[in-house]
């Protein structure tokens, strides 16, 4: 499987993880999905081309970051019944800031979410 094919399975895996953390009390606006997909597809493909496909090795760690993304989205959604695009952007910003800090601590040069 090429990275371009594999990345779709990885994104599905991550959407599942985000949903786990969000739970059933809030819904997700559909326009968030293309936004998250485009963003993380690019990050993941970059990581896969730079480091090779190490999904099975990194899966546990990256899906944990996916659940953190869900938690942050839930937090930013506050009393809103659904997670909208603005909420998703704030959650991604939180997660990516955390990932960059981790990467710097670990001495990883490229600041990408998939290297969290």
């Amino acid at each position: 499987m090429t990275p371009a094919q594999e990345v779709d399975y990885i994104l599905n895996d991550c959407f599942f993880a985000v949903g786990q953390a969000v739970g059933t009390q809030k819904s997700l606006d559909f326009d968030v999905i293309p936004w998250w997909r485009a963003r993380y597809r690019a990050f993941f493909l970059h990581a896969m081309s730079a480091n090779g496909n190490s999904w099975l090795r990194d899966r546990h760690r990256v899906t944990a970051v996916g659940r953190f993304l869900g938690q942050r989205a839930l937090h930013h959604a506050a009393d809103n019944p659904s997670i909208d695009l603005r909420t998703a952007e704030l959650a991604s910003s939180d997660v990516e800031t955390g990932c960059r800090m981790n990467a710097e601590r670990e001495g990883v040069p490229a600041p990408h979410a998939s290297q969290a």
Partner: protein
Amino acid sequence: MNTQETPNPFHSDVTDSQSTSTDTFNSPSPVEIQELERQVEYIVDDCFFTVGQVVGMRTTVDYDAVIWWRDHYREKFLAAMMAFGNRWMEDRSNVTTVAIMLAERAVRYSEGKPSIDAEAARRAAADVERHCELHARRAARRSGLDPSDASATRIAGYWCTF
């Protein structure tokens, strides 16, 4: 997972009313097929998100199960979209309600296991598709339609039975 018009489908009945329109999307062009292939990815993502919501932190999912579900449903969704066009925004609430059932069945089939494996995923999908087929036939009979025609298939989840 669900539309803003339906704030929380987690409390709705999986057999809620479905579309009965019979128009079809005839022979999409290569450009249209390419666009549907792009759109189906969002739909599959949406369903994975919903299944994750319902599974919650009760258990987790094996990557083999993710692969199996994706291969299985992407093909079905794309076939449905090739036939009827992209009706996701109209059907989203109903289909994601079926995804809730898929998740519950998968959790049940993974009892005693550390996670949802490919076998549990396959068994859950088989249950859901049986349910959708039975519901489609019942709904067709109620509507006075021939259960074997395309419009009947469309009722109650052509997304997962196509």
